[in-house]
């Protein structure tokens, strides 16, 4: 259903990283065991925990970059 591509959709360059805001945003998307997190990550249905962590970092990085437009 979902497949992971090892690339970003848009090129990404962070000028001013804002980890505080990123932290707030990721809390709204659900914690480690939250079901919403799986669907929001567009991940495969069965992921090993380490890979899931890897993929979630990808998502956080994307979020951090959206923050510079806010």
């Amino acid at each position, binding site marked *: 259903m979902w497949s992971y*591509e*090892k*690339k*970003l959709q*848009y*090129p990404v360059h962070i000028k001013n990283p804002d980890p505080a805001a990123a932290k707030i945003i990721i809390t709204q998307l659900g914690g480690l065991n939250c079901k919403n997190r799986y669907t929001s990550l567009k991940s495969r249905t069965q992921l090993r925990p380490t890979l899931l962590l890897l993929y979630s*970092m*990808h998502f956080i*990085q*994307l979020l951090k970059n959206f923050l510079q437009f806010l």
Partner: protein
Amino acid sequence: MNEREKMMHHVCMHSLAVFDVGLFLDSHPHNQKALQYYHEQQKMLQEAVRAYQEKFGPLTHNDVTNQKMWNWIDGPWPWEGENE
């Protein structure tokens, strides 16, 4: 940009073009210009992906060609190495 970034940029470029014109075609299925553009970009995407994967390894789970080890897990991953 180094070579890896350049080739990745090409992949991303054509991938976004294909994706975007695909969305347009979802609502305009008979638009010949868009369809033509889609096929052009699709071809360029396949070429860019092939060239990138040949040099730097798989982009998806289904494209691992290494017979000796599962190089899918090799870095760098997309969120790494951005702030150099």
